[in-house]
């Protein structure tokens, strides 16, 4: 039993780090689906752009890596948010957010973003320095304090998002638009503008996830695939459009991934999440925490 403790702690910590980044990415996907009913297949590319943006900041901002990281944490999500806003205006609005059309068009966006990144950024994976190096000592091993900072950052951002949705006028407008687009219009809510802003916020959440993860994992133009897949898993398990469900499912998937990867293999973790999705789709298709039309 004594021998198991360090493995459990390490797996738990790794799971927590993964869950926190996944929570941000999946929340973006869930928010976009919840309010707009758009399945954004390009969501993982916004995550990748966040990571690439962090690398670019590390190249161009002189001085301590922490400075470049802070700049990246602001600039990369803003630029990605602007790109998403533009994509919404140029593509999604023009097809009137048709459900099938948005899937096809976001697949197109995925390839365009990916290939443009390949052409500009190149095919190689690139590392970014962590903003600080401090190792937290446990009786068995040392653990990166930056990874725990990632968890704290994710929790702060999720809490901020929650307060915005539940306590602010903007959140009320978003929730009203989610529940009934036509009635929202009947009360002066410009739903198309709400959609553009929600799409941008969703992309920014993914980009922040990318910025946070890149000191742990190198930036690469194909890195958006796994987070997209796992975000879909989280959103399906948690319940489409349900934010509490998304948070709970991200923790479930992240922790199980950490534990199974350490004790068995990363493949076992993927098998578990796939089986979980299949189980949820068969026995509780609205998701473990899902209710129809709910933020």
């Amino acid at each position, binding site marked *: 039993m004594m021998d198991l403790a360090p493995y459990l702690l390490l797996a738990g910590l790794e799971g927590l780090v993964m869950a926190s980044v996944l929570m941000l990415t999946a929340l973006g996907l869930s928010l976009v689906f919840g309010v707009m009913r758009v399945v954004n297949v390009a969501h993982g590319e916004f995550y990748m752009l966040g990571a690439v943006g962090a690398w670019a900041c590390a190249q161009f901002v002189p001085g301590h890596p922490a400075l470049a990281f802070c700049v990246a944490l602001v600039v990369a999500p803003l630029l990605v948010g602007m790109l998403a806003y533009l994509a919404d205006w140029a593509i999604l609005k023009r097809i009137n957010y048709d459900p099938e059309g948005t899937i096809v068009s976001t697949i197109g966006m995925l390839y365009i973003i990916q290939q443009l990144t390949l052409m500009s950024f190149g095919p190689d994976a690139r590392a970014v320095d962590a903003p600080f190096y401090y190792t937290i000592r446990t009786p068995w091993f040392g653990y990166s304090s930056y990874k725990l900072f990632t968890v704290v950052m994710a929790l702060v951002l999720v809490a901020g998002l929650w307060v915005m949705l539940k306590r602010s006028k903007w959140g*009320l407008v978003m929730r009203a638009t989610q529940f009934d687009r036509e009635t929202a219009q*009947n009360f002066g809510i410009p739903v198309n503008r709400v959609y553009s802003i929600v799409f941008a916020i969703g992309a920014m959440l993914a980009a922040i996830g990318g910025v946070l993860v890149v000191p742990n994992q190198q930036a690469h133009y194909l890195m958006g695939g796994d987070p997209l897949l796992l975000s879909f898993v989280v959103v399906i398990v948690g319940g489409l459009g349900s934010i509490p469900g998304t948070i709970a499912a991200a923790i479930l998937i992240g922790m199980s991934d950490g534990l199974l990867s350490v004790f068995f293999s990363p493949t076992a973790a993927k098998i578990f999440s796939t089986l979980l999705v299949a189980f949820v789709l068969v026995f509780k298709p609205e998701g473990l925490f899902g209710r129809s039309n709910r933020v």
Partner: protein
Amino acid sequence: MSEMRVEGYDAFYGRSQALRDFSITVKGGEVLCLMGRNGAGKTTALKAIMGTVRPAAGRLWLDGEELTGLPASEIPRRGIGYVPQGRRLFSELSVAENLEIGLMTRHSGQESLDYALGLFPVLRERMKQRSGTLSGGEQTMLSMARALCVNPSVLMLDEPTEGLMPSAIASIREAVVKLRDDGVAILLVEQRVDAVLPIADRVAFMNHGEIKARFDIEEVRSDKSLLHQYVGVGA
């Protein structure tokens, strides 16, 4: 005196024409009732005025200002309140949040909220309750109160008494009369003749998307065969 004027509205669902040369004028302090059989185009007419069904032709004025072609979200901001069929509350939001959505439309203040709650005092006790859990009558009251929070000069109601108990119908009717007396222009869509006759000032009968006839309410009250002719019911 507020006035809403609609002229020559045509509207289509795909290739099917749902509204044909629809024209009405409703003035402050009067209740104009649109009546007609199911599928006559009454609800489409209200949706076309609100802009959620885009009219293919026609013009709209409110208090002399032309609203034709404005985005749907701009119409309520100019002062047209709407109580849609089936109430269409944001059922997961609380009563207070539903009312806040109404207040946000034209940045109305506490005065508008007090006026709405004065008409439906029962809502004061339910402010924190999820609106989807209210009774049918309370939901209709909330839907009306939400529209009144817009501080509208014209209020359009689409079958507000549908599915309600007599006591709730009486409350709604009293509120409509009070609004009319306070100078609000009211366009009321109703199927229930007994709900219309005591409160309407004028009646317009619709069929196949067109207004077929218009009468002062006294004419309808005195000649019940009109109701049979245009709506297929006796009073």
